């Protein structure tokens, strides 16, 4: 005995419905569609084809797909990159001012801005700082807020001379070429001097150790982000060379720094590195290729592709992070 509803038939002996007619056709169509999908994908990937990068490198859409970057995500990344690198009309660029007038400047800034929040979070974890404080330290007036907080907790009244000496440390006068680590030393000295000069305070050596550790780590983060506000690859190269030179000096220096009552070898070396080292790999690799490009003539398309590739790296990181958190939660 069987009943029909037009698309499936009830077969009593089997105690189930057997699909007939349109449903079956639909199923076959869907099977065909599924079989055709890899072909469609191949066409789509072929259409995107080879993507030109800097330093004579290239990557294919297929390679991206193998790294879990779907064509639609690549398109989105290209869009974000295009909108960052923007237009190249001479009149408008002239209007915008010299500091932002080159595509390379926008590329460098785009790359550094994209990775900054990740580097800040990594630095905060590494230095055992809370993220809101780390984020605060990277803002121009945020670090002043943190120093004001420290002074208040040490019961040091803010006076005009106190503010002036703090401002002198955070100002840019005479600081050219000085790396973040050394500038942090200047802040430390200034804070000690302020404490020594405050009659109601027992002096610089009596400043709370934990508070000082945190403020110096935050100040180094501040200076590290300031020195990464760059507008050209030459400036980036100069910063990296500066760090190389500083590290070479520090390696020759046998003096060990005492902290928390212990002697730690290589303490200075550990902290003598640019914040760029904490940036996601996708950005560091992109900037490395830009530095290796070997010519001042940059193809706009290659710059856009490099920034888009960095965006894709960030997309993947977010996805992995969400998946990890989900697994941990379960």
């Amino acid at each position, binding site marked *: 005995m069987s009943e029909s509803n037009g698309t499936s038939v009830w077969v009593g002996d089997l105690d189930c419905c057997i699909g007939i007619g349109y449903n079956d056709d639909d199923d076959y169509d869907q099977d065909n569609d599924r079989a055709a999908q890899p072909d469609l994908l191949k066409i789509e990937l072929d259409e995107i084809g080879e993507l030109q990068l800097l330093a004579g490198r290239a990557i294919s859409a297929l390679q991206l797909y193998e790294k879990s970057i779907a064509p639609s995500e690549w398109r989105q990344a290209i*869009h974000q990159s295009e909108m960052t690198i923007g237009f190249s009309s001479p*009149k408008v660029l002239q209007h915008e001012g010299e500091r932002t007038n080159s595509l390379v400047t926008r590329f460098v800034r785009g790359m550094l801005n994209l990775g900054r929040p990740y580097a800040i979070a990594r630095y905060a974890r590494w230095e055992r700082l809370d993220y809101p404080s780390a984020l605060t330290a990277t803002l121009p007036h*945020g670090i002043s807020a943190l120093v004001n907080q420290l002074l208040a907790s040490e019961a040091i009244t803010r006076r005009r001379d106190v503010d002036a000496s703090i401002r002198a440390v955070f100002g840019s006068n005479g600081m050219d070429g000085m790396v973040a680590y050394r500038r942090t030393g200047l802040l430390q000295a200034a804070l000690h001097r302020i404490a020594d000069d405050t009659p109601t305070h027992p002096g610089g050596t009596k400043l709370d150790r934990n508070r000082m550790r945190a403020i110096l780590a935050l100040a180094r983060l501040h200076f590290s982000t300031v020195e990464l506000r760059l507008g050209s690859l030459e400036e980036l190269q100069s910063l990296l060379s500066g760090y190389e030179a500083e590290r070479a000096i520090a390696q020759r220096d046998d003096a060990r720094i005492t902290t928390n009552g212990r002697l730690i070898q290589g303490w200075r070396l550990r902290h003598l590195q640019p914040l760029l080292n904490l940036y996601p790999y996708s950005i560091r690799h992109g900037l490395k290729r830009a530095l290796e490009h070997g010519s001042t003539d940059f193809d706009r398309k290659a710059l856009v592709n490099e920034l888009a590739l960095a965006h894709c790296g960030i997309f993947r990181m977010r996805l992995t992070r969400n998946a990890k958190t989900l697994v941990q939660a379960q």
Partner: protein
Amino acid sequence: MSRVYRFHGPAYLPVLADSKLLRKRKKGTVTPFYLVAADTYSITDKDGTRPIEAYQCVPGQRSLTLTKRESDLIALSNAGVQPPVVLEDLHPWLPEQRYLNDSASSFQAIKLIIHRFSRHFMFASQYCDEKWNTICNALRKKSVLDARFFTAWHLPIQDVHVLEERRLDRSVVSIDFNGMYPACMQQPFPKPSGLRLVRLDRYLSDSEVLASGLYRCIIEGPVTDSITRHNPFRSFHSGRHLRARLDEPVEVDLNEFEIEFYRRHFQSIHLVEAVISDKVVSHPLAKEVCRSFARRRNYRNQDNKALADREKYLATLMTSCAHRPARPCHTFEARDQAMGALRAEYGIDPPNDEPEVATNIWLQGRKGIKLGSQDGFTVVQGPNLRDASACFLLGQRIVARGRIVLLEMMERILNSAPGVEICYTNIDSIHFSLPTENLESELAWLESECSDALGSFKIECVTRHGLWLEPGRYWLYSDDVEKFRNRSVGDQKQPFKDHAIHVVSRQLGELHVPIRSTLRMERTMSPSRSLTADADTGLIRQRLIEVGNATTVEDVLDELEQNQQRSTPIRIAAFLDLRERMRSSRFAATKRDDDTNIM
């Protein structure tokens, strides 16, 4: 088929018309204010003048400065401390106050202004609560079907059609409606508690009179040139509101008066279903807003600009006070579940080719809905559409009525003289150009119709030329700039200011951190409109990106990038050109005067 809704499509809303008792808001207490004034180096309060670094928050009181500049100076000199609130932000209708750069004088100024105006002070939230309570008293209940008015298209008409009118034989006229939204509040509204859902599934007949409510329609076949050229329908695509294609059917929720307007512009209107009410009510604040408009007119006639502006401000609050729903957070185990809820609740249904990363960008809160993750869960924050502390139909119908008033006026202007070109429309104003030979008769017609009555319009300005970059950015000029607006970067005095410096305070942990940022005009220009030269007229026409059923995300991204690359530089160049022309003409005029004096 194109879809015209707040988001991608309709939401799955309840079929049963349960009603809810509207909930009043409790009257809050106002924190007492502590007056302070500042200049670059010092602050002054009731205890005298001292260095600016000595500023401290007074417990239990909220510091208050007269100008934003003073608050910024205190914030920048005392990073970490909560900055004072600003009197001109709390009461934007107050006469413009200049920063004096002398804290003692500024302190006298704030005391004086408080003495003069304190009895007129009314805080926005307090006022809205009060008016919402009036609405609750009048309406008592609403049906949950009111949520349909939230998902319907909700924005006023804001469009630019022409980049610049520089033709020698043309003139530009700008008109402005008087109290557009208060006038729209005088119209009937379906009774919110009496809403019911009816299935129609038929075409609109020629002479049919529809009951008051919101109709789900499928409209097809534009028949007039004006509707094709000034297409008011918008579809949500790739996180933006873009122009809906009219060469395919359009699904849209329309109020009965909108159907009445569109029926003469389209071949057919198919009515699918409707949320209607057999009874109509007047807006509970209709009389009050009318009285407010009369007061505003009186104050203006007495040259009391501050109090006239106050009435305008309060009227704006009255038009929007019914649209303040609670925004609860909901947690979902998986993103798919959250997206399913967004589809059901708000009609958010991103196309398949929109990657997750792109959806996440526009779901960061800019559109009123926030999607985020926390501890491995997906969190959604958005308005509660079944909330008893909002009634969406009141606001939606006011804005919809405003759109129709503007469209009807545009139609009349287009038919009023040959060669009329609508250049710019924004909520309650229309800028159009026409051959100068027709100007006299056009002005005679407009003058015969305009008045200072509520809902009527006034002729704002007549010039020879105009430059319109985008909504909120225009310059109407002849030998000099006569009227201008430069949204987010301009002020009332400098027509060619191209950037603005803002200080915002952001709370991070315990600290309030001032952030100083520069907004440049070219960086805040939307890439949603393209520019194309019209060989017949010599004009450069602006056109919003158009989307339809077959539009892919890639199509939209392509157009956005092209516009960013090509159109934005042209706009900036036009702005710079105008600035240059105005400067050189002013220089020439000065030189002419000098020469005359010498002779």
